[in-house]
């Protein structure tokens, strides 16, 4: 089981010959991910870590049967890479690139909806289903197979929580970052819908941050439809208003998007919010033992 990626994932890496693409292809293969192809325009015919490189996504998918793509190309080329992936026949695209223009993402998400293709990211650290498959840039050694689903707007903060949950003796079903940008392919609710149907997942740790109202909407969704234990953490309690805190989407504007509002929204629907990341493991234990 697990969600999004598993033993049936056949991965194509877009931007496989770049510094990050090449490094993380090796890491993913070492983790056990089935990387079947890479794409870099103009470098078709080469191979990297024994993975064949193609010039186009179409050739890569036709030649290898790849069903999932991961994008490591620089932000400037990422929009085009997502469109190319969507037209190639893969059903899941995971975009690591950070800094994709927001209006491009408006077009991308609208197009993918018509095509029936799911996008995770951009500005995502990837998706890992421990024991099956790791796609993206997460450090593989922190995971342990288990029953906790983890979904986050952040990258490294996600690792922090995974680490805490693993150290507390719990494992993970699937762990993913949905991306820190204003417009992203899949939001918290889209992912909770998948965790809801996943038999392996018993509880969910959700990591939000300042900016926007996605957490408030998710709290309403949880109240209405989500029947598994959820614990949360919100980053940015100390963030000053009006300043973008690294992530394009992490900004308190016009008094909206504060950590305080998000924490209140979760607590109001019975989702406990950790004060520091490591506490998430304790809260999860308490929730599961009830």
């Amino acid at each position, binding site marked *: 089981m697990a969600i999004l990626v598993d033993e049936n994932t056949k991965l194509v890496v877009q931007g496989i010959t770049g510094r990050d693409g090449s490094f993380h292809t090796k890491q993913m293969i070492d983790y056990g991910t089935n990387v079947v192809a890479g794409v870099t325009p103009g470098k078709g015919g080469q191979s990297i870590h024994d993975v064949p490189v193609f010039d186009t996504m179409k050739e890569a998918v036709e030649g290898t049967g790849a069903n999932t793509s991961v994008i490591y190309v620089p932000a400037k080329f990422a929009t085009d890479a997502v469109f190319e992936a969507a037209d190639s026949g893969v059903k899941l695209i995971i975009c690591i690139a950070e800094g994709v223009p927001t209006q491009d993402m408006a077009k991308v998400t609208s197009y993918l909806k018509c095509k029936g293709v799911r996008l995770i990211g951009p500005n995502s650290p990837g998706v890992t289903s421990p024991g099956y498959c790791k796609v993206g*840039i997460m450090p593989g050694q922190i995971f342990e197979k288990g029953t906790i689903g983890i979904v986050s707007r952040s990258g490294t903060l996600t690792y922090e929580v995974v680490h805490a949950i693993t150290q507390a003796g719990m494992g993970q079903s699937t762990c993913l970052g949905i991306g820190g940008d204003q417009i992203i392919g899949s939001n918290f609710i889209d992912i909770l819908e998948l965790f809801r149907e996943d038999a392996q997942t018993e509880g969910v740790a959700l990591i939000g941050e300042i900016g926007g109202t996605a957490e408030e909407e998710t709290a309403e969704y949880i109240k209405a439809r989500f029947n598994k234990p959820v614990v949360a953490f919100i980053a940015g309690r100390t963030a000053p208003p009006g300043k973008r805190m690294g992530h394009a989407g992490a900004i308190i504007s016009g008094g909206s998007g504060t950590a305080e509002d998000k924490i209140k929204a979760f607590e109001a629907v019975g989702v406990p919010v950790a004060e520091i990341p490591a506490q998430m493991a304790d809260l999860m234990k308490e929730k599961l033992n009830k």
Partner: protein
Amino acid sequence: MKLQEYQAKEIMKAEGIPVKSGKVATTPEEAVKIYHELGGKVVIKSQVLVGGRGKAGGIKLASNADEVKEKATAILGMDIKGITVKKVLVAPAVDIAAETYIGIIIDRKSKSPVIMVSPAGGVDIEQVAKETPEKIFMTRIDPFLGVMSYQSRALASKLFSEPDLIKKTAKVIHQLYNIFERNDASLIEINPFCTDTGGNVWAVDAKLVLDDNGLVKHPGNEDLRNIDEEVTEELEARANDLSYVKLDGNIGCMVNGAGLAMATMDIVKYFGSEPANFLDIGGSSSPEKVLAALKIITGDPNVKVIFINIFGGITRCDDVAKGIIQAYDKLSMDMPIVIRLTGTNEEEAKKLLQETKLVSVGSMAEGAQKAIELASS
């Protein structure tokens, strides 16, 4: 990236939107000169990138040369929310009949641009949204189709009932959307969008915010950046591809990843102290970026202790370690440094750092507590 009112007005004017644009002055004498060129009543408006200029006394009307000089003198050099006014826009005053609002934003929820209009213009639109939400009208725009004529007509008719004004307003909505899309803006706004007693429409104020992520597509727009209103360290950080926000505490933080960087600030506060900054060295970080980051942190006189919190993913711990070693070589880092390193290439990094005098900790919570303890000793 926020633009000044006069910059936004120049772009709107070039697009064909009716704007009483005026000219920018940096001295009272220049302001008087512009007044003589324009002839008639003028408005003198401070050019700073913060809201609430009117309330702060940064916008004044003047109807003769003496008044222009007096009011420009008062506004230039004035402090508005921590920003010193260096420029004023001197523009012809409009005989306002009605004040409305037109704006375009990116809506996260519908993942599209949204056009907002309100007959309640001239006041803070967030206040209107809070107090009288029924006075705000919104239409979602398909990013592939752009604004359709029926949409602009419907929106314009929420503001005016006269056919001629509806027509003129609808045209402005299309023109605003063109600017918004062509420049990868994240916000464009005319507030107030006014009618005068002669039945004309005017953009009396203008706001334009460009998407930082979109600047790569429009390198020319970098020239519009208002460098003198930005914090020097934040500019230096951007030049090195880092994100940095200065705060007031004494624990300097260097972290990889924005979420973890925020959580690191939060945990410093949780254990009873205050962070000196937000600093994200980003994903694919090189030793050079780490060196640049430490240079910015050590340049802050408030910093007593540096807390480095790295959880390597795409960031390789050995790259960070190399940067720290270079920093010891090139910077005067006499304050204690607490470091937490884990993740990709952690072992290589720890070997590299064996010889240094860093205080190594096993967790983020331990690191924060240790840093606070060292800062107060």
